[in-house]
């Protein structure tokens, strides 16, 4: 009797013991769910191109991890937190998804990472901008890979204030990301001796910016900062150029501008614009080599987000292979223990708050005469070292950061 009792207990203990149950790949497959805006405002900075980058990473890795196949699911979150959260819940409950990749609109990401924490699955955020994702909204279950609003503000705004642009008017997208960028910019501008003379929060998305541009012109600020992204930034820049904002002596500062935006706007409108980026395809041999392979498949050069999706997926798969597990905590620990050295980053590392810190770049958009091709768009002015670029842990409000 006792023997049966003890062996039952032992069996139960074995089943419950986390270490033993996790040292394998669940469901005999590594499943990656790719969630992004596939059809709206943010489609071109991640979207189907990001899915292609994810597939490239899987192909380059060999299509399987330690004999287990790698499967990809993808969905359009339509920039809706509800849609994104429901999709991910379904993926975890029904499809046994191990990793959620992509993730663009910050509001969607914050909703999804909450679910990832409850269900103990892993997420790698490549598209989102809000620095709050690894600050007050940090979880042990997600990593923020490419950039956030802190280096954007710190890189671009600081450079501009240093050059004498000390009075600012801000055009802010009225949601989580815009607010985060706005507050990061305000901090940087004030710390460096500048002043915010006015701001307006516009609905997301907005197509007609003429009214806001007129308000910016009336403010008398030297710098008009765009704390928005995607088509909002494109629309604002186009309208500003029509209303002669630059000719009347004001300077535009795009705080979050992607390669595809510059390409869409054309160099006539964007030349001379300074911006901060986490990666550029024409940085070095390794980035060029990968970007050209990507170009062959998509006929477009990759954005920093698409490059980040490739880089982070490979890093993840390496960690799964190394540990032989797809358990979130195990893989997360292995990923943090290994520095990121690839076409995307040199000596990038994942901090305890989930922030992957790496060098960022202050670039200037080339003039039409300097550009040698459709995608020859940036000149790198300055490398912002990783430690300077991102919010220091000493200022962090993340609960995972000790003391």
């Amino acid at each position, binding site marked *: 009797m006792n023997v049966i009792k003890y062996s039952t207990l032992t069996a139960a203990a074995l089943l419950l013991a986390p270490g033993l149950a996790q040292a394998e790949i669940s469901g005999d497959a590594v499943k990656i769910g790719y969630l992004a805006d596939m059809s709206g405002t943010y489609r071109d900075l991640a979207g189907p191109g990001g899915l292609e980058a994810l597939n490239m990473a899987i192909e380059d890795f060999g299509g399987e991890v330690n004999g287990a196949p790698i499967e990809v699911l993808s969905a359009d979150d339509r920039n809706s937190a509800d849609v994104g959260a429901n999709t991910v819940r379904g993926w975890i409950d029904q499809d046994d998804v191990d990793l959620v990749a992509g993730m663009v609109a910050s509001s969607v990401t914050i909703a999804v990472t909450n679910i990832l924490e409850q269900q103990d699955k892993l997420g790698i955020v490549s598209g989102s901008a809000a620095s709050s994702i690894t600050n007050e909204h940090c979880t042990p279950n997600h990593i923020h890979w490419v950039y956030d609003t802190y280096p954007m503000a710190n890189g671009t705004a600081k450079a501009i204030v240093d050059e004498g642009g000390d009075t600012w008017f801000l055009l802010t997208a009225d949601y989580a990301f815009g607010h985060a960028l706005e507050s990061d910019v305000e901090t940087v501008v004030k710390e460096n001796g500048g002043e915010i003379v006015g701001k307006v929060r516009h609905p997301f998305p907005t197509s007609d910016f003429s009214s806001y541009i007129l308000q910016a012109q009336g403010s008398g600020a030297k710098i008009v900062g765009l704390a928005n992204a995607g088509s909002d930034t*494109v629309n604002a820049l186009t309208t500003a150029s029509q209303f002669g904002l630059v000719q009347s002596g004001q300077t535009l500062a795009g705080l979050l501008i992607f390669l595809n935006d510059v390409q869409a706007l054309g160099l006539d409108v964007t030349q001379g614009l300074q911006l901060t980026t986490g990666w550029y395809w024409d940085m070095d041999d390794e980035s060029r080599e990968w970007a050209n392979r990507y170009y062959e498949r998509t006929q477009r050069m990759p954005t920093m987000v698409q490059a980040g999706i490739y880089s982070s997926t490979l890093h993840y798969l390496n960690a799964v292979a190394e540990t032989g597990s797809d358990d979130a905590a195990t893989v997360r620990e292995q990923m943090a223990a290994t520095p990121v050295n690839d076409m995307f980053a040199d000596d990038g590392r994942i901090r305890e708050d989930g922030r992957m810190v790496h060098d960022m770049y202050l670039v200037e958009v080339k003039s039409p005469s300097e550009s040698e091709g459709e995608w020859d768009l940036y000149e790198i002015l300055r490398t912002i070292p990783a430690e300077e670029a991102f919010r220091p842990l000493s200022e962090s409000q993340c609960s995972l950061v000790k003391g």
Partner: protein
Amino acid sequence: MTTIFGIPLMVLFGQLLLGLINGAFYALLSLGLAVIFGLLKVINFAHGAQYMLGAFAALLGLEYLGLDYWLALLVVPLVVGALGILIERLLLRRIQHIDHLYGLLLTFGLALIFEGTLVNLFGVSGSSYPVPEVLAGGFNLGFMFLPTYRAWVLVAALVVCLFTWFMIERTRLGAYLRAGTENPKLMQAFGVNVPLLVTLTYGFGVALAAFAGVLAAPIYPVSPTMGSSLLIVVFAVVVIGGMGSILGAILTGLAMGLIEGLTKVFYPEAANTVIFLVMIVVLLLRPAGLFGKEA
């Protein structure tokens, strides 16, 4: 300087002028919708997509055929309007005898197909269309800098709106159209080819959308999604003005542009919602719309 609620009067003038320009766009688009609904009783959900097709046709025409802006303004509405005629002949006609909701579903489906196809081909970032040289630059009005092109948009849109209104309300052809919707059987007994009138009307409504698209091309980035965001607002305008009322669509379009413009100054966060608030109030107080006849 004189101020109203803390906003200098001059700044307010500028904002009102911009509101009027946007209102002219709303008027032009809602006019097309109103014409189509008034005569066909079809709720044309493809209107936004047809506006977008107008802008795209202008852009592609310029890139591949060297079609200049002024020609595009003439040719593109004809081409897209012809597409509208095809849609009416091949699809809408087959469902005209059943519930109007099917027309809505059909045109909504068409809009998704047009947009989806172009998103796949061109992405959503869009491209810019150069402002024609004659209309480049702008005036300094003292209280604001007005790009010449925007002034042109205001004039062109108003002229087309008034022309359409005149055609439908003040000419014999317009009288046929109105009578045809009132009692098609009787009109046919008089020897008027009503089905042809209906086809041409749909084609004309679509051409209006395409015309607005060409007008918009140099202002907004030309992208496959440019129509869908505008369409909902335009529908609200039509509902406020009264479904099917031509003059109502024009006046409401202008008024909503002004109200939206003021909201952008006093409470920008609500700029996208204010028109819908107006719509709710109007529906509560006058369900048939401001200019609609009580059903």
